[in-house]
């Protein structure tokens, strides 16, 4: 079979963007059946302007038991505060207030 120049171009476009994905179309039809609760940034609520690296108890709530930083899509932290949080966690790790990603 010879490939026509139109077909691959067309299918490539549709599978890229808004087209239905091969498997997971059917059960996903009713889009807004439940409304997920909107997460808000804890630091914005508390109006935090500086995240102190010495506050290990606070930082602890933003790392997993493994020591990894919890992504902000889970904690709901805004980009700016996550950035500050990252710096604070790294400093705290440096001075043994928080673990590095290790020990499960």
């Amino acid at each position, binding site marked *: 079979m010879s490939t026509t120049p139109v077909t691959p171009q067309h299918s490539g476009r549709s599978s890229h963007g808004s087209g239905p994905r091969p498997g997971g179309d059917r059960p996903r039809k009713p889009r807004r059946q439940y409304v997920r609760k*909107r997460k*808000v940034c804890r630091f*914005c609520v508390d*109006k935090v*302007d*500086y995240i102190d*690296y*010495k506050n290990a108890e606070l930082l602890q709530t933003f790392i997993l038991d493994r*020591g990894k930083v919890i992504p902000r899509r889970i904690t709901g932290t805004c980009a700016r505060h996550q950035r500050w949080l990252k710096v604070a966690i790294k*400093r705290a*790790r*440096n*001075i*043994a*207030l*928080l*673990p*590095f990603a*290790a*020990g499960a």
Partner: protein
Amino acid sequence: MAEERFYELIFICRPDTPETDIDKVLSTLQQVVEEQKGRVEKVEKWGVRKLAYRIGKSREGFFVFLAIYGRQGEMIKELERRLKVSEPVLKYMTVRIDEELKRQRKLSERRERRLARRPRKTAGEPAAASG
């Protein structure tokens, strides 16, 4: 001379270090700061804390915290050199935080000003939380 900078310095000693030795380390540091025309703003002994990970063979350490104003980077260099050679010190860290504090002050002031202008609602928050 350079502008004044603000640093925080934390060092960790072995947990079995006698307090007199820790004071000795502290006084040498303070001496260095004085020589370099800085000043020690605050000294806090946090005491023995658990370490998040092992350093050397220790699982805990005696934490000492200092807040220092300084004008010359040489001062930090010398402080860190002293810490490196002093025997009871397990680990140390110096952080320059004046710029972050400046940012914090700026943000706080801006928030206050905004609140003063429009006291009806907490300013700067998205109006998503309605019900």
